[in-house]
């Protein structure tokens, strides 16, 4: 049995550091280049099928420049992949044109089963699997969690149909399934598997660009800074500065001090604060100095 798993390299944005608004609040440490975790789940499903039968071949297929080669090889190690294909393309593609390119490569490999993640964590279109099945003219089931291949060569898949319903479908092969996360235990490859995957040569494929993109991204708005527990902006600053403080994800320069510690130390702290800001004069207090 031949399986192709489509794996996408994504850039996971972990947060805004708030250091520099002009770089949209991101620093290099905020970006983690990795393989889409849904695709990793698809690789885990393939690894389980491969573990059950020695004759299974698994080929990984990725599209675009190798931005996360280490993670890609880690996926290859997880499933002991036979091949690692890369479709060379720098174009800004929509899901339809991506799946066109993937379909051309998959036709050349001729697999019995095509797996991919149900969506990617960077664009979250969730369309590639369906378009791929359409281009290849194969049956498609979305968001599967479990997959078994029966002796008659049919696939039984389990998917969550929402509200706790678990749907079990049977499909002829070849077929395309998109995989959901959650059902597979994380696979950690052994060192030997990793070494073998490191030796794997990435086989590049180049195709004529397929269908022209019919949809185009015309805008992308970064999310507003999420509210955080912050001290109030310094009211002495002009409004522009205060907004800049808020936008820098709460890095407010105002020195708010929370007094904790023993009761005595808190009282002393309060007195010191009041005296420092000339809000308290011991001579005004009956019995004071």
């Amino acid at each position, binding site marked *: 049995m031949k399986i192709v798993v489509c794996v996408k390299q994504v850039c*996971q944005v972990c*947060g805004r550091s708030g250091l520099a608004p002009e770089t949209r609040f991101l620093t290099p*440490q905020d970006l983690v280049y990795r393989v889409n975790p849904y695709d990793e789940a698809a690789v885990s499903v393939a690894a389980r099928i491969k573990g059950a039968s020695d004759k299974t071949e698994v080929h990984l297929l990725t599209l675009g420049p190798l931005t996360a080669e280490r993670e890609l090889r880690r996926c290859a190690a997880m499933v002991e992949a036979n091949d690692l294909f890369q479709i060379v393309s720098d174009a800004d593609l929509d899901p339809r044109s991506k799946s066109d390119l993937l379909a051309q490569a998959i036709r050349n490999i001729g697999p019995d089963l095509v797996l991919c993640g149900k969506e990617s964590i960077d664009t979250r279109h969730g369309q590639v699997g369906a378009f791929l099945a359409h281009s290849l003219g194969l049956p498609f089931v979305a968001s599967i969690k479990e997959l078994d291949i029966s002796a008659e060569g049919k696939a039984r898949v389990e998917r969550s149909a929402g509200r706790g319903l678990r749907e079990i479908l049977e499909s002829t092969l070849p077929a395309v399934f998109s995989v959901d996360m959650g059902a597979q*235990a*994380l696979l950690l490859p052994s060192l*030997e598997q990793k070494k073998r995957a490191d030796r794997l040569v990435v086989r590049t494929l180049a195709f004529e660009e397929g269908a022209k993109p019919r949809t185009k991204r015309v805008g992308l708005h970064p999310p507003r800074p999420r509210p955080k527990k912050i*001290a109030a902006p310094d009211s002495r600053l002009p409004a522009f500065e205060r907004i800049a403080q808020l936008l820098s994800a709460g890095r407010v320069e*105002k020195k708010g001090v929370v007094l904790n510690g*023993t009761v005595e*130390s808190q009282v002393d702290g309060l007195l010191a604060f009041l005296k420092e800001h000339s809000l308290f004069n011991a001579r005004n207090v009956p019995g004071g100095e």
Partner: protein
Amino acid sequence: MFTVFDPLLITAALLVMIAGTAVRWRSWQRGRKEERSGDWKGLCGYLLSHRKIMRKDRSGIAHLLLFWGVLLPLAVIFLAQFSFVLPAKLAGALSLFLNLLGAAAIVGILFFLVRRMGKDGSPPEGVLPPAVLLLFILLSGFEAQGVRLNIVPAPLWTAPVGALFSALSPASPLFLQLLIRMHLLAVLLLVATLPFTFLRHVTAGALNVYYKSKGPRGALRPLAMEEGCLGAKTVEDLSWKQLLDAEACVSCGRCEENCPAFLSGKPLSPRKVIRTILNQMATPRGSHPLLGEAVTTEELWSCTTCMACVAHCPLYIDPLDKVVDMRRYEVLGKGAAPVEARPMLRNLELFGDVNGKSASHRTDWALNQEVPLLSGQPVEVLLWVGCSGAFHPAYRETTRAMVRILKKGQVSFAILGKEEKCCGDPARRLGEEALFLDLARENIRLFNRFSFKKIVTLCPHCFNVLKNEYPALSDNLLPGNFEVLHASQFVLELIEQQKITLKYPVRSTAAIHDPCYLGRANGVYEPLRKIAGAVPGLVLHEFQRTGESGFCCGGGGGRMWLHESGTHINTLRAKEIAQSGVGLVSTACPYCLTMLEDGLGGLELEKRPKVRDLIDIVADSLG
């Protein structure tokens, strides 16, 4: 008295012993190579003082009696073979001395027999025959002396024990002859079987003490990955010293008695791990069964790496490094880390922290705190925050408290900020050596970019790894011109130099819970107590299990991320805390803090003792 056969018999016994020793020697010499240097001074000190054995009073005294009660008479008997004449008084005194030593040895051996039998009626395999034989040798010796006294009387004071035996013995020269023959045969039997019974610890144990590790106890042994070693699959993957450890084991059970996993009913027993290795060493070369078949994964993952077994072994045997080597094979060789721990390991791979929050959020705790970031400027102290200090909601308060202390003490300090990565301890303790090396190398690269004199860590696990394990990496590139201190050590310095004063009283009865990686691993016990003593109002008690015998919280060795079946270790400790009646438990480790808090919470006490980090207490009291 000697017959012509005796030299033959003695030669035969010696030959069997030598052949047996050679077989045993080969069985542990087949381990992997390891550089070790011996320590004569240490061995002599160990034998004379019996310090490590005496840690358990009664067994220690019994061993001391047996040791000298066998060794000195042996020496005298050996010397007696050279004909010389002693003045009668001196000979009498010597006889009295030997008599008393023999009696002491009988007391010792009887104690051990009763102790070994008394546990559950079945002493460990192979312990009984040599012990009984030794007892027989001693008793037959005294009986022979008793009979001889009946035939040739001697002053009572020269042989009081022999005289006791003489009261019940006949004055028969024939019986005397018989006794002497039996005594000799028993001695020869003991000598011949020495390498095959637990009594081989006479040589193997001494060798093990001679070659004992001189490095810090907390440092794990590096894995020779470049030589293709992925941990311990069979006993041949262990080093010769690790096999010598097993060879020296006398199955005394002190490791078990102190193992938190064993005491809480987990399947792990450090003694069993060592005995399994010993049994497998006996199989022919090349046909070793897999260690994983004899030691189950449940056993391996039950270990909290608290080092209680290492600290309490009287023969410096280290069951922990075998457990870690077997874990390494599970993870690196088979890719079979426990399912619960995998997300944490994956988080370390991807994000460099155990929580998967990523570098972006590593300095969130420092918002509004004006914490200086390490830059080109040299500073005195690099404050190593660690994953818990940066992300754990409760422990972040401790980090802030530390910053307050440092500011108050006017210390020039800075943090690494977002570039700091996990120190690698959880990965290494779970056997993921490759990941540990990646993290360690990244951190070392970072250290090389900056200039500082001290690294101060909040977490004892980070402290242990930075202090003991980074310098031992094979491609160590550490700048080497700084020292690593735990926060408690540094705060004590500040207090002693009067850079900070503790003014406000913290009124409570408190006890110190010693973190394993601070205490047993690095011997840092006193700073915690000195700091607690410096806090006004704090009345310090000690737990029953404290210091070197301190009980683990159950969170080390990656156990923080693993499920625990049966009685939880932290619950056991929490019960001890509740019984002690203290109002405040002071510790110095984020794992201990979390585990004890959870354990005490689970007891549903009316008045629950507070668990706090010592740094928080100091910050509260800060004037």
